[in-house]
């Protein structure tokens, strides 16, 4: 379980252009949850992402992972607990290494049990259905953007992190590949029980795959809606004192 509690982030504190990017922001991400964060530019999505990845230390509030408060945030220590996939497919993989070696590194998150090891996470790779499992000795720099992003996701979750953070991870992909990646995301969430927090602008993917959609505006949660499966009409989104929408 990952939680941020009453977090404030203030840019240019004490200056004429002081801005509260996150205002008393609280969010609890439960096990198995698939949360999507949406919001217009400048709403506070990126700031929230930076807090969760340790790039920004909150001015006030708490950051708790599995019941333990993270006081001094250092990215490389935080990333032992959190898997992360960025928009750029190249940022999550190691292009000079083979697919097999990339998988080994994913398993060795935080330098655990270093030595000589064989690849793991082959099931996920096979499940993708894009044939990467047959090209284990291929250098990653020879792969396409979509293939790299799939591999980046598998690397990010190989060591079963406490949470998977996705920063517009399908933005650079074509719709077909984006769908495949989203199916993999769902599989990771459901089968590996890893909570997922995704930031996106793509409303189609959001409605199709998310269980919970949080809209941020002015550094605060402006709406928080949950999806409920309905056998007759597909997915129904509903929230406290909010509108109800249906997605078939």
């Amino acid at each position, binding site marked *: 379980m990952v939680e941020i509690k009453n977090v404030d982030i203030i840019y240019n504190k004490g200056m004429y252009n002081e801005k509260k990017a996150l205002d008393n922001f609280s969010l609890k991400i439960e096990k198995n949850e698939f949360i999507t964060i949406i919001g217009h530019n400048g709403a506070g999505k990126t700031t929230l992402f930076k807090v969760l990845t340790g790039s920004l230390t909150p001015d006030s509030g708490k950051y708790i992972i599995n019941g333990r408060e993270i006081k001094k945030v250092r990215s490389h220590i*935080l*990333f032992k607990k959190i898997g992360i996939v960025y928009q750029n497919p*190249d940022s999550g*993989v190691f292009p000079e290494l083979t697919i097999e070696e990339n998988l080994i*590194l994913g398993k060795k*998150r935080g*330098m655990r049990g270093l030595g*000589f090891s064989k690849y793991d996470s082959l099931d996920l790779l096979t499940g993708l259905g894009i044939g990467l499992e047959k090209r284990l000795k291929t250098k990653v720099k020879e792969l396409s953007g979509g293939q790299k992003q799939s591999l980046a996701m598998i690397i990010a979750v190989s060591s079963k992190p406490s949470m998977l953070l996705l920063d517009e991870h399908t933005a650079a992909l074509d719709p077909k590949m984006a769908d495949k990646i989203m199916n993999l995301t769902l599989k990771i969430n459901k089968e590996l029980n890893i909570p997922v927090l995704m930031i996106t602008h793509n409303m189609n993917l959001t409605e199709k795959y998310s269980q919970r959609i949080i809209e941020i505006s002015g550094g605060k949660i402006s709406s928080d809606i949950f999806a409920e499966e309905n056998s007759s009409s597909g997915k129904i989104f509903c929230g406290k004192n909010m509108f109800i929408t249906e997605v078939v």
Partner: protein
Amino acid sequence: MNLLGIAEQGLILGFVALGVFMSFRVIDLADLTPDGSYVLGGAVTVSLLYRGIPWYYAIICAFIITGISGFFTAVLYNKFKMNSLLASILIMTMLYSVNLRIMDGPNISVPKDISEETVLYSESTSLDNFLGDLNISAEQPDKKENRKTEYVSPFNNLSDGKDFLLLLIILLFSITVLSVFLKTDFGILLRGYGGNKEGVTSLGVNKNILSITGLFIGNGFAGISGGIFSLYAGFSDVNMGQGIVVTSLAAIIIGEILISRFNILYNLLCPVVGAVVYEILLSFAMKYGYKIGFQPGDIKLLTSFFIVIVIGFRTLEVKKWLKLKM
């Protein structure tokens, strides 16, 4: 033309090229420290020989001490957020003074032999002569000289194949150790760091450790090379490292052109093969170059020019530009 001697020099250059390969290719950090750590390796090795330490221990010490100079470059790069080139230039400049201090001068020659000082000899002074009648000097036993001579350097410079064999064994051993290391999980991480520096942080790994390790090993090999060169040539000079990074880069590029497509042992053979070929080309240029007005002092100009041409040809813009001109 003594081909064996040229090959021997190529193998010595191979060590430093291996070190430069480690920093420039494996971890992808531009590091000029080897210009200073190469000399440091020689200075440490020769100084230790004077203290009676065997050459192989001296070389190991040179590896560690020059590795530490790489560690300091990495500290400037990581902690002071300096550009790796600036950090390495600063350490290289510092090493110039350090080397002068270690050698106690601009150069130092390798000791030819070691004397075990059980030097026993008889002493007589004018006072002894004066007191001779009193027979006081008889109480002092005669001292004998027992001088044991041992050849310090393992190289005989006779081009009889022994030097070549020894260099080849040390080099192949180093390549084997390095390739086994690069096959470990930490080695994979190190190679991964070269291609994606931020990516290793996403894996929960402190990337500083990786740059420190890479620069330590890279400069360590430059130190080994400097040490072996000093043993081979019989001296260490404060200016002998000038341009060694550029020479090593030329060797790496030649090696990559020749054998990188085979991807043997993570391309660790490229700098070594390239270094031998470079030395051969160099000796041809020295021997026959005068016919076209070539002078020994032009070597560095030609080496740098060669690197510019090869790197230039690899870029698409240059290829396009040449097509347009033709």
